[in-house]
């Protein structure tokens, strides 16, 4: 029996009387690699912001079975001001859960060492003292990934980590996530259905409602039946979505 990490039930969220999510149900278990897809404005980001307690739901409950400090978060890159005067190392260190900052006499040594270790593993140790404004899109996403790993999370929530990055970095990123998935559950929001379904294990389609799809294989017809009309686009070498890449996966008889 898999251990449940998060249980969302009957969640409704609205902004200025406009309903964005309605009666959403979702469970995230340990070892999950859940791809969250759906049209723009369909509520993907709202769903994870509600999970993180950043937007107040009108209705419903979100139950965490892990402490929030064990949840890593990578927000959309356009949420931050790229010209803010802050160094890479400081950005990564800011990922650490913050109660200790109220103590001005704390020791920072081990925190700095861990941040440097993360940068090292991500292959970007050389840019630790650079200002974030000097980085490329790919470097920036790597820095934010390091930040989200500062607390050694059990659940990692990523909101479109594939924006502003080139194709080569994109596949590196997904390989990295696959590796991280051995140690933690991952919830990945993306608009790139074709690519992510190659890496994720299960899919949630979000368009006002949330439809859980217990497989990484999904067809255009199924997307339509989930009220989630998305184009499945393939990119070069990456296999077509409807093809099974995981041999031992249950296909639910949904062949194209």
């Amino acid at each position, binding site marked *: 029996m898999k251990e449940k990490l998060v249980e969302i039930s009957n969640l409704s969220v609205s902004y*200025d009387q406009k309903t964005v999510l309605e009666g959403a149900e979702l469970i995230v278990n340990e070892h999950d690699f859940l791809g969250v897809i759906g049209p723009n404005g369909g509520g993907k980001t709202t769903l994870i912001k509600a999970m*993180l*307690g*950043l937007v107040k739901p009108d209705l419903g409950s979100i139950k965490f079975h892990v402490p*929030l*400090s064990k*949840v890593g*978060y990578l*927000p959309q890159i356009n*949420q*931050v*001001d790229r010209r*803010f*005067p*802050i*160094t890479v190392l*400081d*950005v990564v*260190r*800011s*990922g*650490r*859960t*913050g*109660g200790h*900052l*109220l103590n*001005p006499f704390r020791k920072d040594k081990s925190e700095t060492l861990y941040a440097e270790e993360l940068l090292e593993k991500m292959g970007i140790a050389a840019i630790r003292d650079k*200002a974030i*404004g*000097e980085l490329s899109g790919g470097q920036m996403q790597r820095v934010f990934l390091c*930040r989200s790993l500062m*607390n050694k999370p059990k659940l990692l929530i990523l909101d479109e980590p594939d924006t502003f990055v080139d194709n080569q970095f994109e596949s590196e990123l997904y390989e990295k996530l696959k590796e991280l998935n051995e140690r933690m559950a991952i919830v990945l929001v993306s608009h790139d259905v074709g690519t992510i379904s190659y890496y994720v294990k299960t899919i949630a389609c979000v368009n006002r409602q949330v439809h859980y799809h217990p497989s990484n294989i999904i067809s255009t017809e199924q997307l339509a039946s989930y009220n989630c009309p998305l184009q499945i686009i393939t990119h070069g070498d990456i296999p077509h979505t409807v093809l099974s890449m995981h041999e031992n996966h249950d296909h639910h008889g949904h062949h194209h």
Partner: protein
Amino acid sequence: MGTIIELFSYDFFIHAFWASLFAAISCGIVGTYIVSRRIVFVSGGITHASFGGIGIGYFLGWNPLLGAAIFAILSGLGIQLFTEKAKVREDSSIAIWWSLGMAIGIIFVYLTPGYAPNLMSYLFGSVLTVSVTELWLMGALSVILILFFVLFYRLILYVAFDEEFARTTGLPVSVINYLLISLIAITIVLNIRVVGIILILSLLTLPQATANLFTKDFKRMLPLSVLFAFIGSFVGLLFSFFVDIPSGASIIFTLVLLFGLVKLAVSTKQKLASRA
């Protein structure tokens, strides 16, 4: 040089010296936060709204700076509250407070019987007339700001950089925001006498822009901004004294000149380096 040392034998000049030093410390620190966070316009709103308090201060016969302080803090918190809770767009909310404060100020100055003394010094600054009490207040504010920014440096930095992410790591984001907006308001009010309502924005942005030419690290920008603010205000003070022009305008002019010269030097150096 001898004449400058002689100047220090005059009380009024020593006062002006301390005023420009404390202005440099407080505006240098607070301005770095304002510029990094891109809330220069918020600060403009607070500054101008404080004129309402000055008008009421005149009308009631209080120290106008007390009224200004109340108006500045209320407008600072008001802008924050309007934007967060009432969902008024931030720039509109700023403009409302900005013009409302000015309007109240003009009405009460008009209603005050007789002539409003020193009104010009609040609008355009007059560093030579800063009182000893005001100097003590400015000194205390400088010490408080230094302590606050040193002790809670990371807290301030993280909240300023990415407020929403800071919430997910459990930082007291709203408390920090309200505390800082209050400190901004107090800094503005206590420096009104140095450069004036109309000109104070420059002391909060020009030294920081100059510092930003050398570093893109918040930690280094703080002391560098203080340094440039001090150079600008002290040299400006001397300039105003010798040429006999208003000190506020002279300080701003020196700050702009300093920025221009440093910018020119930095870009020339870069051009030479890329050619070599």
